[in-house]
């Protein structure tokens, strides 16, 4: 259970919040000019950061306000909480320089051979378990 410091209400249990995905994904200035691939990338493609990650959270059972949070996806350490619309604060936490943060490597999450074992194991699911 994360203890999340809501900027309005103070520390509350994670169950009072909803996750809003990656922060700072700007809406395209001219959506009509995007081709299908660019539109798909705007809608669905997100970073899969190992380390400090800027994300949006909603305090849904409390003040019902959105805010941004800088959270380490490895240690779950919450490094900063800041208002929507403000830029991401500089990471000072040790996690930023950790050796394992190479999620931008070209082959990290794509294509066949490198597929993580968890996804291949889904093919062994019993008949009828998947549709």
């Amino acid at each position, binding site marked *: 259970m994360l203890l999340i410091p809501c900027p309005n209400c103070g520390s509350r*249990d994670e169950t009072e919040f909803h996750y809003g995905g990656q922060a700072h994904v700007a809406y395209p200035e001219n959506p009509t000019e995007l081709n299908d691939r660019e539109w798909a990338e705007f809608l669905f493609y997100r970073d899969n950061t190992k380390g400090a990650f800027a994300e949006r959270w909603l305090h849904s059972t*409390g003040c019902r*306000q959105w805010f941004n949070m800088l959270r380490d996806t490895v240690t779950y350490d919450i490094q900063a909480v800041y208002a929507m619309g403000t830029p991401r604060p500089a990471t000072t936490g040790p996690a930023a320089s950790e050796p394992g943060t190479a999620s931008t490597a070209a082959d990290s999450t794509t294509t066949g051979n490198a597929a993580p074992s968890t996804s291949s194991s889904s093919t062994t699911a019993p008949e009828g378990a998947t549709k």
Partner: protein
Amino acid sequence: MANTAAINGINGLRDIRRSPASHLAAALEAGSIQGTVVLNEGPFQTMAGVRVDPRSEEGARIAAVTGGLPARCGDVAGTDRVSVLWLGPSEFLVVAPEEAHDSLGGDLIGSLVAALGEAPGQVVDLSANRTTFELSGPRARAALEKGCALDLHPRSFTVGTALNTEIGNIPVVLQKTGEESFRLFPRASFADFLGRWLLDAMREFASPEVP
């Protein structure tokens, strides 16, 4: 304003109005342990949801009607008749006795609507949205602590404050009305669940404490 006719129409139905936990009345009475922890459903209240920027002119007009707006999380403003609970930086719950409702001779909703005027914000009659449970007694806090992660110790949760949180995994507004008394505002559809959950939490206090 446009709903005045509808409100007057409801007036004739007042006699057959049933509160969301009325079917639990006997169970609440049986499950209460006098002098230890007592639970009952409170009377109907007039409630209004208000969304307004408290620093604006319209915010000041609303505050003049309610007797102030709470400034931060936990604060409760108002008068002895009207309480204004903080739900968010620009969202408040106004709670008053049932007679304050416009359909019963009061003028609370109408005055709030008039105070907001055409300014940005909203005033919504939420009198049927939530019910109230009143939980009191020396073990009231112990019962709540079984399903509420907030620090309910009196040094942290003081009389006259209210918090929007979760109790028994459902969203509830929890108000501390006295040293050993609490008022819980669950939504109507959660009233049955919360009533039974509290009865279960209170049950152990009927037996002598095991050292």
